[in-house]
C-alpha cells in the first residue's frame, strides 16, 4: 500500500482551489468559508507528518515513488526529511492565517483570490516535498504564476510594476537552473549509465570539481539567491512585498523566500559540494552585507510595510550565513531561523495590514500613541517585534544565536559584523514601535481606532503561541532536524574529501 498522505497534503489545496472556481462568484461568504476550511483540513492532515516523523532517521520519510515519464527517468517521487518537514508545516500553518487575514481586506473577485492562494499552496508544498528534479522544477516554475496574479490583481497602486518585476526576476534566475538540471542529468547518465532526475540517486554522484560543477552551482545558486533574496539580488523584494495584499505579503515573506534558502540546502550543498566550498566565502560575505545593508535601509523607511520588507533582507542574510557555515550549529540555526522568520515577519505583515485596514495608511508618521487606543493590539505587536529582533525567550533568539555560534567558528570578523545586524534590528524595530505605539496621540483620526476583533485574535494567537513555544522549548523542532542536518554535513564532507 503506497503511502499517500504527503500527496494528499500537497494536492488538496490546489484541487480545492480549482473546485471552488465552479461556485458562483457572487457567493463570496460561502467561498471564503470553504477556502478557509480547505486550508484548515490541509493543516490538520499535515500534523500527522510532524507527529509521525521519526527525528532519529536522517533519510526521507512518507516517501511515494511512482513512474511518470519512464523513458526520461522522470518519476513522481516525494518525501520529507528533517529539513523539509518544518517548512511543509510552516506553509500549511500560515495559509489559513493568510486567508483569514484577507476576510475583509479582499472584496474584489474573492473567488479568484482564494482559489489562487490555494493553488499557490500546492505549488509551494510541491517544491518542499519533491525528490525529483523535474518534479521540483515543475512546482518551482508553476508557483510563480499564482503569486504573480496575487500581486498584480489584488495589490496596491503600483502592483503591475511589482508583479512583472517579480516574475521576470525570478524567471531569469530559474531558466538557467533548467539548463543546469539538464546538464547534471546527462552528466550523471553518462557516468552511471542510468538516466534519472531522481534526487537521492543524483546526490550519490560524486562529480569532479572544476568548471562544470562551478557553472552548475552558479546556475542553481542564481535561481535560489534571487528567491532568498541574497544581496545584491534583492531589489524585486521591496516592490513585491509593499504592493502585495497583506495575505500575499505573509505568504511571500513566510514561505516563498524560504524556497530559496531551502534550495541551497536541498540541492546546492549535496549536489555541488566542491563548488559550495569554493564559493562559500563569497556567499558568506554577501550574506553579511545583506544583514547589515537590510538593517540600515530598514532604519530609514517611513513606511512600515517597507521597513518589514527590508528587514527580511537582513533576516534572510542570517539564514544564508547559517547555511554556509556548513557546520551543525549554523545549519540547524539557519533552518530554525527560516521558520522563525516565517512566523515573525508573517505576523508583522499581518499586523501592519490590520493597522492599514483601519487607517488606510502605513506611514509611521501618521501614527503615535496607539497604546492608549488599541492596547491589545499594541501588546501583541510588542511580542512580535521582540521576537523579530531576537529577544531571548522568544523564537528569534534561538535561531540567531545558533547561526552566530556557527559563524564564529568560520570567521570571527564577519561574524562580528553580522552580530551588529542584531543590534540594528533592535534599533529599527524598537524605534518604529516607539513612534507608532508610544507617545501622545498625534493624529485625531487615530482616536477612533478599534482594537482587535475576534477574527484578528484568532489569527494572531496561534502565531504568538508558536513564537513563545519555539523560544521556550526549541527542542521540539530542532530535535526533528538535527539528524538530517548531520547527515547532510557528513555527505558534503565525504564527497569533497573523495575528490581530494
Amino acid at each position, binding site marked *: 500500500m503506497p503511502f499517500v498522505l504527503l500527496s494528499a497534503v500537497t494536492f488538496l489545496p490546489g484541487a480545492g482551489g480549482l473546485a471552488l472556481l465552479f461556485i458562483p462568484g457572487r457567493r463570496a461568504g460561502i467561498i471564503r468559508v470553504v477556502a478557509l476550511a480547505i486550508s484548515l483540513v490541509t493543516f490538520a492532515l499535515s500534523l500527522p507528518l510532524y507527529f509521525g516523523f521519526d527525528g532519529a532517521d536522517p533519510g526521507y520519510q512518507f516517501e511515494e515513488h511512482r513512474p511518470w515519464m519512464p523513458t526520461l527517468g522522470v518519476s513522481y517521487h516525494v518525501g520529507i526529511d528533517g529539513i523539509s518537514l518544518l517548512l511543509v508545516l510552516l506553509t500549511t500553518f500560515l495559509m489559513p492565517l493568510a486567508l483569514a487575514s484577507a476576510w475583509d481586506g479582499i472584496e474584489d473577485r474573492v473567488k479568484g483570490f482564494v482559489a489562487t492562494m490555494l493553488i499557490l499552496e500546492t505549488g509551494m508544498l510541491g517544491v518542499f516535498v519533491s525528490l525529483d528534479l523535474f518534479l521540483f522544477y515543475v512546482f518551482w516554475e508553476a508557483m510563480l504564476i499564482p503569486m504573480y496574479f496575487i500581486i498584480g490583481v489584488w495589490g496596491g497602486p503600483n502592483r503591475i510594476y511589482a508583479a512583472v518585476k517579480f516574475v521576470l526576476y525570478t524567471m531569469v534566475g530559474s*531558466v538557467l537552473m533548467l*539548463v543546469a538540471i539538464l546538464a547534471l542529468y546527462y552528466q550523471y547518465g553518462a557516468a552511471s549509465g542510468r538516466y534519472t532526475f531522481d534526487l537521492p540517486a543524483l546526490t550519490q554522484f560524486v562529480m569532479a570539481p572544476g568548471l562544470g560543477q562551478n557553472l552548475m552551482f552558479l546556475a542553481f545558486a542564481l535561481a535560489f539567491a534571487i528567491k532568498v533574496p541574497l544581496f545584491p539580488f534583492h531589489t524585486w523584494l521591496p516592490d513585491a512585498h509593499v504592493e502585495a495584499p497583506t495575505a500575499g505579503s505573509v505568504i511571500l515573506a513566510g514561505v516563498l523566500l524560504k524556497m530559496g534558502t531551502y534550495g541551497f540546502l536541498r540541492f546546492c550543498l549535496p549536489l555541488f559540494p566542491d563548488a559550495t566550498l569554493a564559493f562559500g566565502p563569497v556567499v558568506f560575505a554577501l550574506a553579511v552585507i545583506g544583514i547589515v545593508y537590510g538593517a540600515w535601509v530598514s532604519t530609514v523607511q517611513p513606511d512600515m510595510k517597507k521597513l518589514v520588507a527590508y528587514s527580511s533582507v537582513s533576516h534572510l542574510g542570517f539564514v544564508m550565513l547559517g547555511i554556509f557555515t556548513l557546520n551543525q550549529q549554523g545549519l540547524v540555526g539557519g533552518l530554525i531561523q527560516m521558520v522563525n522568520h516565517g512566523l515573525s515577519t508573517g505576523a508583522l505583515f499581518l499586523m501592519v495590514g490590520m493597522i492599514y485596514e483601519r487607517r488606510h495608511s502605513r506611514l509611521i508618521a501618521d501614527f503615535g500613541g496607539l497604546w492608549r487606543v488599541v492596547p491589545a493590539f499594541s501588546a501583541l505587536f510588542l511580542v512580535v517585534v521582540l521576537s523579530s529582533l531576537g529577544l531571548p525567550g522568544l523564537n528569534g533568539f534561538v535561531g540567531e544565536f545558533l547561526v552566530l555560534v556557527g559563524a564564529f567558528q568560520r570567521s570571527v570578523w564577519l561574524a562580528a559584523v553580522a552580530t551588529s545586524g542584531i543590534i540594528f534590528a533592535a534599533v529599527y524595530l524598537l524605534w518604529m514601535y516607539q513612534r507608532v505605539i508610544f507617545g501622545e496621540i498625534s493624529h485625531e483620526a487615530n482616536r477612533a481606532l478599534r482594537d482587535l476583533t475576534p477574527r484578528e485574535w484568532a489569527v494572531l494567537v496561534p502565531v504568538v503561541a508558536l513564537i513563545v513555544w519555539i523560544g521556550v522549548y526549541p527542542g521540539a523542532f530542532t530535535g526533528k532536524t538535527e539528524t538530517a542536518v548531520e547527515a547532510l554535513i557528513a555527505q558534503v564532507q565525504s564527497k569533497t574529501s573523495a575528490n581530494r
Partner: protein
Amino acid sequence: MDAITFPPVVLGPLLPTLIVLASAALVLLLDLGPRWISRDLPAGVALAGLVAALLVTLGRWGTAGRAFRDMIVLDNFALFFNVVICYAAALVVLLSMDYLRRTGSDSAEYWALVLFATAGMMLLAAAGDLVVVFLGLELMSLSLYVLAGLFKRELASGEAALKYFLLGAFASSFLVYGIALIYGAAGTTSLDRIALAMAGRTNDPLFVIGVGLLLVGFGFKISSVPFHMWAPDVYQGAPTSVTVLIATGSKAAAFAALIRVLAVQLRGVPADWSALVWVGAAVTMTVGNVVAIAQSNLKRMLAYSSIAHVGYMLIGLLAGGPGGVGAVLFYLLTYTFTTAGAFGVITLCERARAEAVDVADYTGLARRHPVLAAALALFLLSLIGIPPLAGFVGKFYLFGAAVRAGYLWLAVIAVLNSAVAAYYYLRVVVLMYMREPEGAATSYVPSFAGGLALTIALLAIVLLGVIPAPFADLAQAAVAPLLR
C-alpha cells in the same frame, strides 16, 4: 524498345489525402445546390472529411506504405504529421464556421481551399521524392495565398495575400532551382536514390549548392530568420482563421519535408551545416522574441512569437537523433494546439463591430468574460513554457536534446529567450486581469463551434503537459526509422 511499365497503382498510402481531396470536391459540388445546402453543409462536410482522414491516419499507425515508386511514403513519420495537420485543419474549420458568417465571407471556396491546402500539407509530410515535395508545397501555398486575401474589401488582407504570393513564389523558385541542381548532380529526384547516388561524393558543388537552395526555400516556409519578413504582415492581414492554418498546419508540413530531406538526403554529408543552423536558431529566436516586445497588434505579436518558436525547433533539428528530431515533432504538436487556441480566442472577440486585434482591446477582458480571458491566459502561459502546460514539456524535450548533443550555450540562449518572451506574453495577461476595461468594451461573440475548438485545444495542452510521455515516445518512434 521496352514498353513503358507503369508502376502498380496502390492508393492505400494516399488514402488520408484522397479523403481530404474528395471532401473538397464534394464541397465545391454542394455549392451548386439550393441555398439551404450550400449554406450549411460545406463546413460540415469539410469537418467530416478531416475527421475521417484523422481516423484513417490513426488506423494506419504502425504500418508503412509506399506508392508510386516511393514517391509517396506513408510511414509513422508522415502519419504523425498527418495527425498534427488534421487536428490543425479541423480546429481551423471549427473556428471558421461563425467567424466567416460574421465577417460576411462565407463561401464554398473557402472550405474547399482549406481542404486543398490540407491535402498539400499531407502530401508534403509523405513526400518521398523532391517532385512530390514541390507538388505538395505548391498545392498548399497556392491555396493559402488565395485564403489570405479572402477579405476582398480590406486593404490589409489584399496586401497580405500579395506579399505572401510574391515572396512565396520567390522562395518556391529557390526550391525548384535547388531540386534541379540536385537532379543534375544525382540523376534522380527520389530521396532514397539521391542518398545512394551521392554516397561518397557529397562534396559535389552542384549538390551542395542545390541543398543550400532547398534550405533557403524551406527557411522561407517555416519563417526562420532571415526569411521571416513575410510572416508578420501575412499573419496580421489574413483572416484570423486562415492565420491559424498558416501558423500551425503549413509550418508543421514544411518542417516535415525539411526533416525528411535533411534526415534522408543529407545524412553523411560532410559539409558542415550545423554551424549555420546554430546561428540560424539563435538569431531566429532572438529576433522573434525581441521584436515581439514592441508589437501592439496581438496577431502581429503572435506572428513574431511564432518565429521565435521556429528558432526553438531548429535547436532540436540541430541536436539531431531520435531525441532531438522527436522533440521537434512533439513541440509541433503542442505548438499547434497552443497557437490555434490563442488565435482562436481572437476570432471570438469583437470590439466596436470589428475584430479585436489590438493588444489594448483585451484590457479588462477578465471582467467581461472570465472564461475566455482564462483560456487566452492559459494558452499564453503555455507559449511561455510554464509547467504543467504543454509548452513547458515541449521546450524541456528540445533543450534537453540540445544539452545532450553538447549545445549548452545554445540552450542557455534559448532559456534566456523564454524569459524575454515571458515579458510580452504576460503583458497581455496584465491587460486582461490587472486593468479595468475602458471605452468601447470588447465583447465575446458566442459560437458553439468556436467554443468547442478552444475546449479541445485547452484539454490538449493540459493533457500533453501532464502526461507527455506517451506522445513524446510516439514522436521519437516516428522519427527513429528515418534516422537509422
